[in-house]
């Protein structure tokens, strides 16, 4: 596949812009500007900013990504998700780079700037935690935390939850899924309103939905809060690591090393957290409250479908269940048929060979093609004199053959003489789990015994 022209152009434009960007920055650095009072060279078109906007680097990447994304064609669409994941990671990396850059530029002493960086991270986690504590849902997350939440959003999408939340529910009821910052107070207000008047029943339904949404949000917040706490812990762990590196005389000289160390520390802290009782609870609660909400949504929708004379989910389920039961029954019938056909064949060839002196055909294909090697069970293998090899019966293995021998049953003839009303008790005694009946050992034994008798005659 040749590179389309647009992509060359796009990349070149972007690369040029980047180059200018960095050049301008480097130039200003040398001229003694500090980032705090520096004008962003990229911001020319959009206005006069006197200080560097937050997260500019990550935003630069995002802008490029948006432009790039518009050029996506169906042929490269297969990688859209990967592009997105790379860009998401890149944005985090850029944020880290920008922070490190800003801080190292502001202070000549590397030790101070690193401390400042860690303090900044720590404060971010703490303010996040605090916001959650105030019941303010927030999307401000870090690194994998954010990736993980985006993943969760995809899970919701795959369940049709966001669809429901954003469109259906709002259209039908004016009720909006609480994604804004003061969702908690909004919801509580709604829940406390009296259920009176004409549509009381559906109002009660809506209140129930609201209550379940609230529960889910609370569980989600507890989950996020636990994550935020881990963030703070990770900073502590990072401080420890850095101290350790210092005492060993090692140093970190690149962004990438810093990033890798940060990932290491996070993964370590996370692993301990993920194996804790607390995680088990917040994880379980999140899934459980989400499912309770989803269940209520399902039945709410079912009511609407029914009113519109459309098939409901529960009706579909009933049909699926029936269909599965039918195909299961079919499968069993097929097996029984196959079995019967084989037995008929065995009987017929047994009759043939008994009428047909001198010719002894192999009766059961199995016996002729591959005689099984028997384990060293004395009774089973030494039974040639007084007994038959009962394992020739389908579904009857060495273990069962041994148990039967212990009961004194060693030949097809003996087995074939067991009365039908004894079979159930015997099956239980053998622990054969119904195989005795299902595989019709008695019938098989009869056929075998007749075959042997036939052979003996001829």
């Amino acid at each position: 596949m040749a590179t389309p022209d647009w992509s060359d152009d796009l990349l070149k434009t972007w690369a040029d812009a980047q180059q200018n960007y960095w050049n301008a920055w480097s130039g200003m650095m040398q001229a003694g500007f500090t980032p705090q009072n520096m004008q962003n060279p990229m911001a020319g078109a959009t206005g006069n900013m006197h200080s560097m906007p937050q997260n500019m680097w990550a935003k630069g990447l995002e802008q490029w990504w948006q432009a790039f994304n518009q050029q996506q064609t169906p042929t490269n669409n297969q990688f859209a998700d990967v592009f997105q994941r790379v860009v998401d990671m890149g944005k985090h990396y850029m944020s880290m780079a920008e922070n490190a850059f800003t801080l190292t530029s502001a202070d000549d002493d590397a030790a101070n700037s690193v401390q400042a960086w860690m303090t900044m991270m720590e404060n971010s986690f703490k303010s996040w935690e605090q916001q959650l504590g105030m019941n303010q849902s927030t999307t401000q997350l870090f690194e994998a935390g954010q990736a993980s939440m985006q993943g969760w959003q995809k899970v919701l999408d795959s369940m049709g939850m966001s669809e429901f939340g954003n469109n259906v529910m709002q259209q039908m009821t004016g009720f909006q899924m609480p994604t804004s910052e003061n969702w908690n107070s909004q919801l509580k207000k709604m829940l406390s309103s009296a259920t009176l008047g004409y549509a009381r029943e559906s109002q009660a339904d809506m209140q129930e939905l609201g209550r379940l949404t609230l529960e889910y949000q609370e569980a989600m917040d507890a989950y996020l809060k636990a994550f935020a706490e881990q963030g703070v812990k990770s900073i502590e762990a990072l401080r420890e690591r850095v101290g350790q590196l210092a005492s060993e005389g090692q140093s970190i000289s690149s962004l990438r090393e810093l990033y890798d160390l940060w990932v290491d520390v996070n993964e370590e802290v996370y692993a301990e957290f993920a194996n804790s009782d607390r995680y088990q609870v917040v994880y379980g609660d999140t899934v459980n409250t989400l499912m309770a909400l989803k269940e209520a949504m399902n039945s709410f929708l079912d009511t609407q479908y029914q009113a519109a004379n459309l098939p409901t989910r529960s009706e579909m389920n009933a049909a699926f269940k029936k269909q599965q039961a039918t195909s299961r029954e079919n499968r069993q019938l097929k097996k029984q048929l196959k079995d019967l056909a084989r037995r008929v064949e065995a009987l017929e060839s047994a009759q043939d060979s008994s009428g047909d002196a001198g010719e002894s055909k192999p009766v059961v294909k199995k016996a002729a093609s591959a005689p099984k090697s028997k384990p060293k069970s004395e009774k089973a293998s030494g039974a040639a004199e007084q007994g038959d090899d009962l394992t020739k019966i389908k579904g009857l293995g060495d273990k069962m053959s041994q148990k039967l021998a212990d009961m004194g049953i060693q030949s097809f003839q003996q087995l074939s003489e067991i009365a039908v009303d004894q079979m159930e008790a015997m099956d239980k005694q053998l622990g054969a789990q119904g195989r005795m009946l299902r595989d019709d050992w008695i019938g098989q034994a009869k056929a075998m015994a007749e075959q042997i008798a036939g052979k003996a005659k001829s």
Partner: protein
Amino acid sequence: MVPFQMRPDEILNEVKDFNAKLAEGMTNLMEVGEISSGVTPFDVVFEQDKMKLLRYKGAETAEGYGESKTPLLIVYALVNRPYMTDLQENRSTIKGLLDAGQDVYLIDWGYPDASDRYLTMDDYLNGYLDDCVDDICERHGIDSVNLLGICQGGAFSLCYSAMHPEKVKNLVTMVTPVDFKTPDNMLSYWVQNVDIDQLVDTMGNIPGEMLNWTFLNLKPYQLMGQKYLGLVDIMDNEKVLKNFMRMEKWIFDSPDQAGETFRQFIKDFFQQNKLLKGEVEIGEYTVDLANVTMPVLNVYADQDHLVPPDASRALEGAVGTKDYTELSFNGGHIGIYVSGKAQKTVPPAIGEWLDARA
């Protein structure tokens, strides 16, 4: 003394390099072309509903099938897709087994849809799997096959072998959980507080997205972040990039799970550890691992973060066979199929073990 030696201009340079690599890499990524699902050719020899039985070709024989007297049937997990075992030419367990002379079959379970939510473990094992075994037996005029179960497919193979010992000549389990409650089993730990009945009743099938999210959360910082930073470094190498994309495709190619099977698997196996206790009930059977009396080769990975080695090794004390062998591989849950080292050692060892018990 201070372990940080980063100067602002160096940070700028590093970022510039990163951005340049990313921009060039994105172009390479767009030209990487279609990513295949598996590389070894096969015939579909048997089909039922969405299930397909594949027979692999590529051995140096007239028909291209392996020559082993007893065919080998691979039972893969329902989670993710079986082409993990056949990702690329020089990283293919399937190819390795063919090279070791095995006649290799594999069950492709397909992608369940809403109509499959009531598929039970009984349907999967005593239905699909048993029918595949019967089909192979008829095709070859034999009574029993060799089974090779992978991960959840390994647990399935164990159940099947306990229910139908007469149909399994030799059993190979790979990265297979047996004891689901070892202390280092994070997945198992997580699901203990999940109301599985409510989950399945509500969802029907369990979305693959949900499972995937769970797996990625085992090591989120590496799997959702660092990995892609590493990708930027290798994006200029088309071949390495393509291999990365193959793996990436596989990781996110996660079928939904049939609801009823998921219910039983999580409740009985993960939450209540019934496989080890001999209390799993499937159809008319109670699964007792003591009935697994054929030779068993248990292959596990030393650094498996999904199925910890102890979870697999518990098999030794549970099976009824006297011919039990363990093979440990120095790597992870996925590395055991796709690493170069695994390619050289694991399939040949399995082939040798099987040949000795032909």
